């Protein structure tokens, strides 16, 4: 069954008629071709599909598109000009916070949210704060260092 929905994606209004079972992740990826949002488990555990819904991080794989009428969705693409995100991306590059890159978009969005809430986190707070995002490559060391560096750089800027 299809339903109509109006929502905002990366500051653009979007009107769509979609299957009521269509996840937000599939809507973003298949209908809008926003493929920075990755699917690692499709059951809400790995965090690769993390986007912002009304500014809060959420798993787009277990959010239904038709339930998001009037909501504002932000994906990594929508944060291209976000100054904090630019600092975070640079820190992930500088501290080797990614290998295959598949978890990276979700990791970046969770990092931005963590640093918004906790501008100068301890190493332990970073590890707890990112525990909802799985990475299979890095062993997290580069990621933790990147987040700590981003915190430092954001504080300095």
């Amino acid at each position, binding site marked *: 069954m299809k339903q109509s929905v109006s929502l905002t994606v990366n500051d653009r209004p979007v009107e769509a008629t979609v*299957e009521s*079972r*269509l996840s937000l992740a*599939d809507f973003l*990826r*298949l209908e809008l*071709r926003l*493929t*920075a*949002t*990755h*699917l*690692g*488990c*499709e*059951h809400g*555990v*790995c965090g*690769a599909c993390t986007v912002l819904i009304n500014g809060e991080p959420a798993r787009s794989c277990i959010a239904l598109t038709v339930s998001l009428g009037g909501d504002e969705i932000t*994906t*990594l*693409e929508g944060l*291209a000009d976000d100054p904090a995100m630019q600092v975070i*991306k*640079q820190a*992930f*590059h*500088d501290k*080797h916070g*990614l*290998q*295959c*890159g*598949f*978890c*990276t*978009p979700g990791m*970046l969005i969770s990092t931005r949210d963590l640093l918004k809430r906790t501008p100068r986190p301890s*190493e332990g707070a*970073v*590890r*707890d704060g*990112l*525990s*909802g*995002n*799985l*990475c*299979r*490559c*890095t*062993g*997290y*060391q*580069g*990621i*933790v260092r990147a987040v700590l560096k981003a915190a430092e750089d954001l504080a300095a800027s």
Partner: protein
Amino acid sequence: MNHSDTKQGIGASVKRTEDARLVNGQGTYLADLDIPGTLEAAFIRSPVAHARLGAVKVPSEYSNQVFLAADLDFAHPIVAATDDPQFQSTKQFALAKDKVRFVGEMIAVCIAPTRAQAEDIAQSCELELDELPALWDMDVATAPDALLIHEHWRDNIYLKTDVSVGDLERARKDATVSLSKSLSMGRHGAVPLECRGVLAHRDRRLNELTVYSSTQFPHVLRTCISRAIDLPESQVRVIAPDVGGGFGAKGNFSPEELTIAALAMKLDQPIRWIEDRRENLIASPHAREHRYDVTVHANNDGLILGIEAMIRVDAGAYSVWPWTAAMEAGMVVGILPGPYHVPAYAAKSQSICTNKTPMGPYRGVGRTGACFAMDVMLDAVARELHLDPADVRLLNLIKPEDMPYQSITGKQYDSGDYPEAARKALAAIDIGAIRSRQAAGEKDDRLIGFGMSSYTEQTAHGTAEWVSRGLPVVFGYEPALARLTPDGKLILHVGIQNHGQGLETTLAQVASEELGIAVADVVVRHGDSSVSPYGMGTFGSRSMTMAGGAVSVACGQLADKVKRIGAHLLQTTADAGTLSDGRVHTETASVALNEVAEAATLHPERLPEGEEPGLDISAVYEPKRSTGAFSYATHACVMAVDPGTGEMEILDYVVVHDCGRMVNPMIVEAQVVGGVAQGLGTALYEEILYDENGQPLSSTFLDYMIPGCAEVPDVRMLHMETPSPHTKYGIKGLGEGGAISPPAAVVNALNDALKSLGAEITQTPVTPLRVLEAIESGAVSPL
């Protein structure tokens, strides 16, 4: 991204070129491809472990969207056998015929415009299955009256091996202690964060079947597909786009790849399959599941006199191409003695067929289990003799003066100082302080333990090694085509596949070393059977050594030509030039690479007489000796365990590592740490359990735990750098090593902690429940 490094050749921690697209969400993985008209596939997989397959009832409205074995009968089955005449081989058809042998085996493929619709169709079909008893465990499959999984076999064992070297009788006679134990390592998965996926379509202009796959070896896969569906290789192209992790699980020829390729060709229709996580956990090749019965004979000082081992591996229902079902056990037999001097050795192995998912390669192949068995036994010997395990280890490690060293199984350890790595690890973790802390006891009543483990890892296996294994393919070399474009930039076309290892950067560093070109001016093209000469792909810790060597040779030859042309342009003698900063320099003048390149490509009239135009150099590299370059390391860790709850914590983790000459220390360190995290998964968290009906019990990330950020410690790393005498620059491979020692180091630390309770852990993953069980069956009451 801002780059600020100046020195960019071998040894520089250059930041990665590939990061720019990946942090901007512009990586293109299999599911991101957008080929017009693509239909999505969903497989109907066997819901039972063992059954005769009857009819598949397909609703009539879907008859053109569901395909069965008979529809793909033109495709040859996958057969992976060693050249050992005793090996009992399997035929794995694209889709199951007559019988299903594991939960997850593919029976049919459904296609529709979306995956959801394809799944709906799969759901609407009915299977007739006549269930047979599930041989769900290796003990069940090897029981005397066990049903045969493959009816024409003698028994449910792919291959038995038996080797005996040295004087074991004497070892038994001379031993002060002959300690026997049974150990086991759980079954788990490689679990890359991006699941597998395939997209195939026919390129009508080129009359070419283009197969995109999330694979580690595109050329080899091209050969497989070509042979399986009888197309000339010139009419098959395989492309690996960005690959979201592999770790071995994407370095096989899978029935999914075969099915999608065959169906796309048959229907002349683009078709894609994207694996979901449940499929990944139940149907992507599994890893490990080893059982060991080991006896160590040692003298009063803990010196090893001999080792006897029985190794059993649950290899699942089919033999995975090209590695075969005997790979795990075979590698264990060869490397069990590890970095220790073992004068007498006898090992028997069985690679057992069960109604479980086939066993494939995973980071550390064989060695993680072998190292676990060896190092846990060494600690047990030390406890038995009331010696410090560190002393026993140092006593038995091969001495640097004995390098190069031929192991008792014939492995040629090339270089290194194994005891020094162990000593550095002991110093870094401060063994003295740990012993004092243990003596003082913990305020929270937790028990503290120290564990260490040393391994040696054969990397960059060359021709001799693969020939000795008798596999269908001998992965002995790697090519590179170096191409200087008219604007003076470099493109490297290589046969490996980069999926997180940083090879787009490190291969550019090799080019920078040879050509004095900036890394930013080098593009590395890989993962496409049509862009590079035939190459073997990325697995077995080989790409940096093999493809790095090939890039070095090609760029070295290119450098000679560039210098000749540069010198000519500068009107000086041919051998006067040097290359740096993107220029050819003579004593008095210099010329930029782009001017040289322009002369060679667009203005041949400017070339010296007799110089051939063009700046494309293709080279193939094999190490000087093909018996492998051996990286090694010692891991040391401190664990705390709560004897009341079984809860564990890693308090400290140190790695002292030697992978020869490091091309990029930043990347080396991250590869090792990433490996350690996976090894900790093996040690503490990851397990695919089956029930006695052969049903997999771990099919989501809720019941299959991979380590998260809060579970992995900050690993402290120290590097040693002993070059390999056999390879270009002395590089040794290192991709897998980090995953080898953690289970042994962790279990040794736990056993050290639990020693006072007489409890001993012999099985991974070590869950809190297993800790409590060990304490309960221990000699000393915890109360």
